[in-house]
């Protein structure tokens, strides 16, 4: 039993990532509004942050910034942090692009409900 609990804790952040992914995906599948759909996509994206930062984490280690700690102090993986921090900013602008597409969808098709947007036009 104890071993099972340990195994569960060992995987907890990764399971939360899977939960975020599935919840966001469920929102996308059942969405009735394009803006809601875009927000759900952001939730899906958040799961990748958690997954990748979870991979780079190390128990008891500090942030990989050696301004006030000596080099050699155990620190977490800086590569995962670098990847995620660029991704958060880039994601914000990609979201703006998607929201602009939603505005266009309303102007062109007169609806923001994905169910109503069945007819594709060139």
């Amino acid at each position, binding site marked *: 039993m104890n071993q099972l609990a340990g195994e569960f804790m060992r995987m907890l952040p990764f399971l939360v990532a899977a939960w975020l992914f599935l919840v966001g995906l469920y929102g996308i599948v059942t969405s009735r509004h394009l803006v809601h759909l875009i927000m759900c996509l952001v939730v899906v994206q958040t799961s990748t942050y958690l997954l990748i930062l979870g991979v780079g*984490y190390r128990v008891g280690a500090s942030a990989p*910034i050696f301004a006030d700690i000596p080099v050699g102090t155990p620190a977490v*993986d800086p590569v995962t942090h670098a990847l995620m921090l660029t991704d958060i900013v880039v994601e914000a602008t990609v979201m703006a692009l998607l929201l602009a597409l939603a505005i266009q969808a309303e102007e062109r098709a007169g609806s923001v409900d994905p169910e109503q947007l069945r007819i594709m036009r060139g």
Partner: protein
Amino acid sequence: MNRQARIALFIVSGLGFLCFYIWGLHGLPGFGHYPGPYGDIINSLTVYQRHATDAITAVNFDYRGFDTLGEEFILFTSVMGANLLLRKQKDDREQKRVVDRADDRVVPPTSDAVRVIGLALVLPIVVFGIYTIMHGQLTPGGGFQGGVILASMPLIIYLCGDYHAFEKVTSHVLSEIAEAIGAGGYAVVGLVSVALGYQYLTNFIPLGETGDVLSSGTILLISFLTGIEVAAGIVVLMISFFRQAFVYRKDGAEDGGKR
């Protein structure tokens, strides 16, 4: 596909995904047991090799600089794409003009508290943004974070005043030029190192003293350029969305009233 079928498909594929995911997790080292060695090597080398104390910024703008160049161009193209989609479009033929449906609503005036605190924050935010960009190689920060902080300055002016105040402190043309300089400058830094006979994006500027603001060579330069690009890109986005909301929709409302 109707709604029920879609949800059924989601449940089946979601369960399948979970099974494979949990199976896959068994091969991963547990949470909190990072196996290395890549991150550890960078952690132990950045201070000596690049004179940068923030390993994250060093990875972003030096060790994986080429990767970040790609990320930057994703940012650049998505800003340009949003800008293109939100421009004023001439062909009204096919298109139903979108009008502000709540055009007659009363907008409550900005409270004095928001105005005073907001205006007091404008200068500190600019200083803090520049500080964050310039100290990226020493402490947490860098072009991406500092750029976003800088870009929040016009937004605060919009919060304190109105769209016209926002329009006065921003310039679409200048922001686009700054964005292009930021994005292009990053690529040019890489080309300069090629011209000097190194590999693309090699750190060719003298590294300076560890802990100084002007240290770690091209990391600082690229961080600065990225800061300009991110700040200008987000300002371009804000201008596009505000124009869409306050100028074009109002025009549409006026036309709709005449017809």
